[in-house]
């Protein structure tokens, strides 16, 4: 019997698919984003892998799907980007027949690092003429996208950076997933989180493997023994890293550096602020964690600062590559990689679809 069925789950509670579980949206200030979308603004969400970008998009879809038409498109979906086709698809048959068109469409664009400048211009045109109420661009790094200058102006103050989960948020994530089941203590989860380099996906993967190992041994409470057995290689690697550091770096600095890289052992009192930044964080515990830089627009100033998850950066002119070369290269590349749209052009390949 599969381990998770033994503890009462029908499916893997540690699935890594974005928002496979609705309560996963932990510590996100979604209201801030919802407000922006309701105010018909354009947003850009950037963040490292596994920081929850796709999860945010899924939350937006469930929030607005009743009142607005949501169009989601991922640039890695393998189709040619056809904005008009996407927008027409958002209109019902009756609307298409009568010529009436939706004018409050929210366009969600994922993996926009492959979007070309001309595609971005086209999107902006539809936004300016009111067809699109709002647009959300998403990718891992704002600076790797080539955007027209007028679109950059719209994005001033609206570039949101998702940050990795904090330790407490990670614990909350697992607690949401497994509910009342007392499989992990907080101390154990902290240790797994540290051993996962604070990467949420790795954290979930490690939780799954450790829980599986424990439950298969008929242990229904994860202990250090289970962690040591499953993550033996990781622990060994981290030990070696520390030894190397001790040899290379002056002893006084070792402690400081070790603090910054992942620690393997987590003590109970690690909640106490140790570094200056931690102290600040603790002092501002109830303060907003949205970091707003160069806030000039009264709209943003007036916003009550919320939550911990986002750093909202106002773009500084000149920080973006003034395009040209990059864009031309990208466009050529995309064109070179275009796939056939007609099924006739699809080459023969070896595919079996299995049937009983």
């Amino acid at each position, binding site marked *: 019997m*599969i381990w*998770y069925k033994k503890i009462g789950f029908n*499916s*893997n509670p540690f*699935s*890594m*698919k*974005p928002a*496979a579980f609705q309560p996963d949206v932990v510590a996100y200030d979604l209201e801030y984003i919802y407000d922006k979308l309701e105010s018909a603004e354009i947003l850009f969400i950037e963040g490292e*892998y*596994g920081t929850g970008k*796709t999860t945010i998009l899924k939350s937006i879809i469930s929030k607005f799907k009743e009142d607005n038409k949501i169009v989601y498109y*991922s640039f*890695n*979906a*393998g*189709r040619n980007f056809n904005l008009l086709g996407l927008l027409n698809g958002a209109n019902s048959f009756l609307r298409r027949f009568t010529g009436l068109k939706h004018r409050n469409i929210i366009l969600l664009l994922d*993996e926009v690092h492959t979007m070309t400048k001309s595609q971005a211009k086209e999107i902006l045109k539809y936004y300016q003429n009111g067809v699109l109420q709002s647009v959300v661009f998403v990718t*891992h790094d704002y600076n790797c996208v080539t955007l027209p200058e007028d679109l950059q102006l719209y994005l001033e103050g609206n570039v949101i950076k998702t940050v990795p989960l904090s330790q407490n948020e990670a614990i909350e994530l697992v607690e949401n997933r497994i509910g009342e089941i007392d499989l992990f203590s907080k101390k154990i989860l902290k240790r797994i989180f540290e051993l996962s380099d604070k*990467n949420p*996906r*790795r954290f979930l*993967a490690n939780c*799954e493997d450790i829980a*599986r190992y424990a439950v298969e041994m008929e242990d229904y409470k994860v202990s250090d023994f289970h962690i040591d057995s499953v993550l033996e290689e990781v622990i060994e690697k981290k030990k070696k890293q520390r030894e190397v550091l001790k040899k290379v770096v002056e002893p006084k600095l070792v402690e400081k550096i070790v603090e910054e890289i992942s620690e393997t052992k987590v003590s109970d009192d690690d909640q106490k602020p140790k570094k200056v930044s931690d102290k600040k964080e603790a002092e501002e515990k109830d303060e907003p964690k949205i970091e707003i830089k160069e806030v000039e627009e009264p709209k943003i100033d007036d916003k009550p600062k919320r939550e911990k998850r986002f750093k909202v950066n106002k773009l500084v002119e000149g920080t973006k590559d003034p395009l040209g070369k990059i864009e031309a290269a990208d466009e050529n590349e995309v064109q070179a*990689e275009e*796939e*056939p749209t007609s*099924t006739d*052009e*699809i*080459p023969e*390949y*070896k*595919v*079996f*679809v*299995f*049937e*009983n």
Partner: protein
Amino acid sequence: MDWYETFDFDENPFSIDARENFDKLVDMEEHVEEMNYRINAGSMLVVEGPEGSGKTTLLMMAADKFGGRRKVVYVDCEILDKNLNITHVLQERFGIIGRLFNKKPKNMILLMDNVNYLSKKNTERIKYYFDQNYIKSIIFTANSYSRAKFSDSLRDRIGQRIVKLPKYNKDLAVEVIMSRTDNNEMFNDQIITKIFKSSKNLKELLHNCEKVAMSAAKKERRRVQMADLKVLSDKK
């Protein structure tokens, strides 16, 4: 009379058809269990190993176990070129109607063989379909995972879930041949070692064993002798 009947076999013991060899894998129980678990749990897994190490056979076992209701798709990337569109592959299960209406699959199990030949574009598409739950789980096989054109975000999703199959070596060769021949003394260690030395991988080893065994069968011998190895050099 087929040559293998001389040795009291009902079928060719050295077959390299992955679909016929489920019971002939050596020391693979743990890997099979891991693969089956990852498929059930909705994850991605990479099976890495040299040619002839049993990667395709593992995938065929998965297809056999999870096949039905058109949920399992096997793709051999070596036979594809970069014009392959994985979208169309997934829509295969709905046939022409699926393509016409752009029908979206759900909870598919994707078995991707030889992903070293897969383009980056297709790996990105696969990630998208996985995230959207069109694909429930994926098993990739590769000669070398590090050389596969996987994006960082896809690698991040795979994490450490990599099964490494053993490299081709003499002990493995002896074990495989003994297992295939049910330890019936058709081959001895010395002869297997000789054949091992003239074979680059497990597939070639099996093929060469077949040739040598056929030579013995022609002479109506139930045991392979050194003289039978001549067929290997004759060919060269």
